């Protein structure tokens, strides 16, 4: 089957491409990129006025299956991903039970094959049950398809265990994704320690609690030679530490979430809205500015959502009791287009770097470039579509979105995976 994407603005900095042209796809592979292309037979898609990007990937998602299918499933989560313009997601291992063995990875891979709307590259747990006491069967999980390892949700508290894990994992040439949190410094913290924690009388989560852990993990990565990817950096100090480590030649990458880029602790008012409760917490405006600078300067490699769906009755609890997290798959791209591209702070090429190439490179996923011979994983964006978050509901099963009610400009209209539509004209293809 042939598919011709006609007249879109095709952008891929990896191949120096930014022009209005056509993309011809056959049997799931890009055959040609150029102007005035023709095909004898097949389907033509008019992409006038739209942006064609290499397929976006979210390297930090929580699909909640198995265990919390009321909050999200592989099916609903991947559909939400497609709606948000993603061609692939990396689900974290903190399910119930934890994905700490090969069989659990295989379960996910098989589920994704039958019910997934986008590609799924599972992340396995570092330690058994993510308890930080015993190493999980890393090798077995790699065999079954795990692309990285993380105890995300929690840190690996014991430095000795992190060293062991990194020493062991390095031979598989996959990264350890670290949730950096020093439990002793953080305690019961639920909001950034500082102005807001004082004013609202909530336990504080100091920036130093992340930075000491980032410094520790960088040093252990350096010691062992293991690849390290720092999850959801949220402070200026963390950005500085990663930047210095990269300058020294340490093999470290990191990601930032849209909520840390575009929200701050000042968004948490005395309404005590638990949709603003995240881990790590929303930080100061200075931190947010440093995060953007880090992205721009390449210290931060990619944007990842940390999509964390939660049941409404749990998010409706008292602030200190509510679970951490916001959903993010359906809003990430639009937040970037609205806050960065539309304001001139970033280009579409940056979007491709931060949401397509950067994530793939950081986690060692298959590369994808818009040129002949590449698999047709593409994201097509309508840069002008205006929409309000939550106005028509969510594709995700959960509604706990920190950006509820925000008016955004720009939205994925189509997603192609291996040449097949996962999202077509704004509707998820089932």
């Amino acid at each position: 089957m042939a598919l011709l994407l006609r007249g879109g603005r095709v952008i891929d900095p990896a191949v120096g491409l930014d022009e209005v042209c056509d993309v011809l796809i056959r049997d799931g592979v890009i055959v040609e990129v150029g102007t005035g292309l023709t095909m004898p037979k097949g389907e033509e898609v008019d992409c006038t006025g739209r942006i064609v990007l290499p397929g976006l990937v979210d390297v930090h998602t929580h699909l909640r299956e198995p265990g919390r299918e009321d909050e999200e499933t592989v099916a609903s989560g991947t559909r939400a991903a497609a709606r948000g313009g993603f061609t692939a997601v990396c689900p974290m291992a903190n399910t119930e039970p934890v994905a700490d063995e090969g069989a659990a990875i295989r379960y996910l891979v098989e589920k994704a094959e039958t019910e997934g709307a986008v590609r799924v590259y599972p992340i396995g747990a570092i330690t058994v049950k993510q308890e930080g006491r015993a190493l999980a069967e890393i090798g077995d999980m790699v065999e079954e398809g795990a692309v990285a390892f993380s105890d995300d949700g929690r840190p690996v508290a014991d430095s000795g265990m992190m060293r062991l894990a990194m020493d062991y994992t390095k031979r598989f040439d996959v990264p350890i994704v670290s949730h950096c949190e020093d439990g002793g410094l953080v305690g019961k913290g639920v909001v950034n320690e500082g102005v807001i924690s004082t004013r609202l009388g909530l336990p504080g989560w100091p920036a130093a609690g992340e930075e000491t852990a980032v410094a520790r993990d960088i040093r252990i990565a350096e010691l062992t030679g293991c690849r390290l990817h720092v999850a959801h950096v949220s402070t200026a100090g963390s950005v500085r530490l990663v930047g210095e480590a990269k300058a020294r030649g340490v093999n470290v990458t990191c990601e930032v979430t849209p909520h840390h880029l575009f929200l701050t602790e000042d968004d948490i008012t005395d309404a005590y809205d638990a949709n603003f409760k995240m881990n790590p917490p929303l930080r100061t405006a200075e931190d947010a500015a440093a995060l953007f600078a880090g992205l721009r300067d390449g210290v931060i490699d990619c944007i990842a959502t940390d999509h964390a769906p939660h049941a409404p009755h749990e998010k409706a609890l008292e602030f200190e009791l509510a679970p951490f997290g916001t959903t993010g798959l359906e809003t990430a791209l639009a937040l970037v287009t609205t806050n960065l591209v539309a304001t001139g702070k970033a280009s579409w090429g940056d979007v491709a770097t931060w949401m397509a190439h950067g994530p793939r490179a950081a986690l060692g996923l298959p590369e994808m470039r818009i040129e002949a011979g590449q698999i047709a994983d593409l994201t097509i964006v309508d840069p002008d579509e205006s929409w309000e978050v939550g106005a028509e509901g969510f594709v995700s099963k959960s509604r706990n979105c920190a950006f509820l009610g925000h008016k955004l400009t720009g939205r994925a209209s189509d997603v192609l995976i291996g040449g097949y539509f996962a999202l077509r004209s704004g509707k998820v293809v089932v």
Partner: protein
Amino acid sequence: MLSSKHILSMDDLNSDDIARILETAESFAEVNERRIKKLPTLRGLTIVNLFLEPSTRTRMSFEIAAKRLSADGVNFTASSSATVKGESLRDTAATLSAMNCDLVIVRHKYAGAPRMLTEMMDCPIVNGGDGLHQHPTQALLDLYTMKRALGHLEGLKVGIVGDISHSRVAGSLIPALRKVGATPIVIAPPTLLPSRPDVLGAEVAWDLDEVLPELDVAYMLRIQMERADGMPFPSLREYARLYGMNAARMARMKPEAIVMHPGPMNRGVEISADVADSERSFVLAQVESGVAVRMAVMYLLLGGGDSGVAA
């Protein structure tokens, strides 16, 4: 009438509101001293004490206040843990709402709970203490006590001594003092101070003995040894030596200066027994004024609108 429908924190009260509450409380104090300590003013209204964190004194104070205004004061105590054991706060609120309560006073282990109730219920909500956040009626009765004892509030220097970072009493008292033109000073070791005391608006001192001679009021907070996250100072003995109010310290204060404590007191720790029982200690006056001030708060919140009192 007050400027806000609810009293969740001192942010809901401006200086006019505070003046009105204190003035009204004086009339109620007078009623509390006669034989028939009852007024028909809030007859027939239902006032609920939703105390999800244990408290005897504060709850009793509110209960007596409601009954002296002829309202039906009702106590609802429950586990404050919203786990499988107990009903969730939202369901509790829905239940109370369905029973048409006219005023709810809530004390809760977690900050923000009173605010949640305002979204679920139509009646006014009074915060009786939420987590580490605020305890506005305590601050009001403290102001009332100070005014009665010292004759005025403006210009007073009030030292608040103790675990400021874990004190909702301080969280309300500091802004309250500023609104009436007094100067709050928090006095504690750095480990007991919040991350940003400047946000609350108080001056900070680590050394009690240095500021003692300037104070008009020494307000001692209870030191809790039972803190889950460990003692933030070496021992009670050390704390009492450096920060405890004892006779020697009291003698070094201005002669008219007074000592206060929100209770319950740890005699021998933050306040010595002889100071607690001395004439310069206004702890019992605080308790007494608590009922009058809470009556004033109830009266001012419930007057007007369809309170249902027969015309």
